[in-house]
């Protein structure tokens, strides 16, 4: 398995192409993923979520720097939305991270959502595997940040950072979107702005009212000042790095890391089942014209979706029914 070997040796070109093949659903890519799977599971995965413009990419850039100072190799997966109208995408997260472009210990790869909801790309799970198998010590995943239902990151990350900014009405929106519950760490970003203290107090009040999470972890709130003042920014990022490290240690010492791993594995199996069972059946229904005939039946009220689905299941999934 030539590509697998290259990936394990850290070959960026081969890795990026494999990620592309996964994004493009090229069947051979699955074989390579199978091959490298045993070499995954070592990297620490950190998710960064929050509204567009909250400063996620800038934070990622800071975290890359902090990790490189400690000699840790870094992978970055930065997700931006695909335009539903043209299928194209502008991937601009990299702009904030270009000072690391030439560092061989840093691999930054942008991903487009390609229609997948939840703030990530369908390829993100396998892309994490690829960077993991390359031997990256830490993988930073930046989500799209459109807010709604952007909770899928918990299926991939050990630690989820939710980034909020004063004066953006973020707090209420985030609560609505159910994004508060997924935070292991809160960042109050651009805290040089007015309203930072208020936002912090509101967050604390909210945490006081929330039930204590499993293992007793209370999400810390890290305030980060102005990224345009490098020294201050670096210090603040240092604090954030320390909290990330603490959370990881907490997961390990409380054995909650097992739960996270289980959740991650379940999710992955779910996705794999979906693509191995549902997709081939759907493809066949499409190519034989059966799907169209079923839709016709429904339009004429000759049947209902549930009965038709059961019929299909009886035909193709005998063992289960």
């Amino acid at each position, binding site marked *: 398995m030539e590509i697998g070997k290259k990936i394990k040796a850290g070959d960026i*070109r081969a890795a*990026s*192409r494999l990620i592309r093949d996964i994004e493009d659903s090229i069947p051979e890519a699955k074989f390579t993923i199978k091959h490298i799977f045993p070499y995954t599971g070592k990297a620490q995965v950190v998710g960064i979520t929050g509204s567009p413009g909250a400063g996620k990419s800038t934070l990622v850039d800071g975290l890359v720097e902090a990790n490189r100072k400690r000699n840790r190799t870094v992978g970055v997966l930065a997700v931006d939305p*695909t335009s539903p109208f043209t299928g*194209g995408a502008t991937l601009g997260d990299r702009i904030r991270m270009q000072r690391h*472009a*030439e560092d061989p210990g840093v691999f930054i790869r942008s991903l487009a959502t390609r229609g997948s909801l939840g703030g990530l790309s369908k390829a993100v799970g396998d892309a994490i595997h690829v960077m993991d198998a390359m031997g990256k010590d830490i993988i930073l995943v930046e989500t799209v940040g459109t807010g709604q239902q952007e909770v899928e990151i918990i299926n991939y990350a050990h630690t989820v950072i939710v980034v909020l900014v004063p004066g953006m009405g973020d707090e209420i929106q985030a609560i609505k979107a159910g994004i508060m519950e997924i935070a292991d760490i809160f960042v109050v970003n651009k805290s040089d702005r007015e309203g930072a203290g208020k936002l912090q107090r509101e967050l604390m009040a909210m945490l006081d009212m929330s039930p204590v999470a499993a293992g007793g972890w209370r999400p810390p709130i890290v305030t980060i000042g102005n990224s345009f003042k490098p020294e201050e920014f670096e210090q603040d990022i240092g604090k954030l790095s320390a909290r990330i490290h603490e959370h990881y240690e907490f997961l390990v010492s409380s054995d909650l890391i097992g739960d996270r791993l289980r959740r991650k594995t379940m999710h992955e199996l779910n996705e794999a089942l979906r693509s191995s069972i549902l997709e081939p059946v759907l493809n066949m229904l499409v190519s034989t014209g059966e799907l169209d005939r079923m839709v016709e039946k429904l339009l004429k009220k000759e049947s209902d979706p549930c009965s038709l689905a059961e019929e299909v299941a009886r035909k193709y999934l005998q063992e289960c029914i």
Partner: protein
Amino acid sequence: MSERKLRVMVAKPGLDGHDRGARVLARCFRDAGFEVIYTGCHQTPAQIASSAIQEDVDLVGLSCLSGAHRYLFPQVVKLLQENGAGDITVIGGGIIPDQDCQKLYDAGIKAIFTPGTPLDVIVDWIKKNVKPLE
């Protein structure tokens, strides 16, 4: 079902900070259905080449208004080749005098578009000359 998508990078090497043109180009590529990685201004050829490899793009579009294209554009091509990525197509745009164009072609730049070129001409060129992966 598998579907290949073109990935392109728009980069601005050199010292001038006017990236309006580059942004317009990035947007136009997105509207053409490409995935566009935009790296911003003040990029060195080394940053551009290594970003292009990390992002696995099919094409790099360089935009330069400062006159430094004579050195910067060929340097990007050279670095891509040295790093096993000579198959990535490089095109350039900006204020480039006629007498420089031939030298740039000789250095491996595949196309040069001067200011005022309609954007769909550039998109058409890409669609015709950059084949999606197998």
